[in-house]
């Protein structure tokens, strides 16, 4: 296995772990969470 392939697989495994974590911390009701985020202008 080439070094590049090994590195590529490691990156994919890292991303899989990260996506698992995102599944855990993402707001349960994404629809409502996003809909309720309304800001007044600023600056």
């Amino acid at each position, binding site marked *: 296995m080439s070094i590049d392939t090994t590195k590529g697989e490691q*990156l994919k495994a*890292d*991303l899989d772990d*990260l*996506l698992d*974590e*995102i599944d855990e*911390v*993402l*707001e349960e009701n*994404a*629809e409502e*969470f*996003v*809909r*309720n*985020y*309304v*800001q*007044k*202008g*600023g*600056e």
Partner: protein
Amino acid sequence: MAIEKVLGIETEYGVAGGPDQDPILASSIIVNAYAQQGASRINWDFEGETPDLDARGLPGLTSFAPIVETHLANTVLSNGARLYVDHAHPEYSSPECRTPLEATLYDVAGEEVLRRALSAANASLDDADAITLYKNNSDGKGNSYGTHENYLVSRHVDFAEVVRAMVPHFVSRQVVVGAGKVGAETDDASSHSPAFQLSQRAEFFEEVVGLETTLKRPIINTRDEPHSDAERFRRLHVIIGDANMSQFATFVKLGSTALLLAVLEDRGASVFPPPPRYPVRAVRHFALDPTLQAVEVGDDGVAYSAWDLQDALWHLAQDYVATSGASAVAPEAEVAEILTQWREMLDGVRVDPASVADRVDWAAKERILRGYQERHDLRATDARLRAIDLQYHDLRPERSLSSRVGLRRIVEPAQVRQAVHNPPRSTRAFFRGRCVERFPDEIVAANWDSLVFDLGDGPLQRVPMMDPLRGTAALTENLLETSTSAADLLRALDG
């Protein structure tokens, strides 16, 4: 000669939740919660800023009184920063810093200040009224709020030259320092139905040059409020940046811009690459294309991509550093690091954005969005993708995604904890911060260029600080340490 690039960032944080879902009230609760921790109860002084308002006429900061107007909660921190309610957002304006790395540290310290404020505020609220904060620039529904950089520039540079020199950078730097965004909000950008844009802010810009910040936003803002000696200095107020979660992105955003301003001061605008013929169209067009292939015709009739412009600007900065050293921007090693990081991020986004997802915000965000979309086979419009975008900027540790994606740090947590309390030693922010810490009862108001003392036995005494590079630790630390009272200090300053 380029003048020393004093700089800093002001960030309006997105705010949600709170009693009655009232963002002004929530913002006030956040600012007051931090002030009541004992960080500071000193009012901001609007003298020279909004002349019809005087801080001494404002209510105290110690109660959660009903809020009837903005500009109520408003305080100065011992690190020299200002924390206040601006419109309907809590805003942290960093202290004046002397180098891009230092300004990055104080921007990150601002996140920590807001995180602590959030924690203190929510401890006093019912769960149903809990507040959430976001370091981002848009709500996904057409409302944008700002992250503004400020740079000290020589008054000798004609403003038309600033425009000519800096437009190429401001339309193109998003390929390296854009924070990324799911979808589009304005009619123009929405007509292209983008799944993802490089920048949170790009589509909101409508003019090349102007005074506005909330309507008809200009790429170059003309606000001329130097907060210092107006005969010598300008403060370039840059409103076109995204709030970055990546510390390296903040560092390169500040470092590249400061270097190019020094080039402008020393070599003039004619050495810069040509601005796009239609800058507003260019900044929006570039944002819509994460493949970085989009081109816009320059003033010289040649088509350039944003990447091409950044490449030309990098070479310009590199040549300047090689010949002049760029000591106006930072010490040699830091300048070298700016060039190195800028180059690596630029090359990375072209070859494979994922390769710089540890430093480039939009690349980090796009990587998890794409991965999540593929894993769950989602449509591009799925709310979960928008939730990921929002939570990337979330300040709640248990919900933050940017803290989980493997972004590299350029400042250490211990440095950040120091910077939450202590001012930079390199500018007048040192004097402001230390006075606020030492003499909170005698200072009745503070702003960027003065402090107002009330010793109780005479008229108020204003200490002007018109030069951002005076009031440093080198010039005032000894005086502050040997003064046992505010009266002592004022006598010594007089003498």
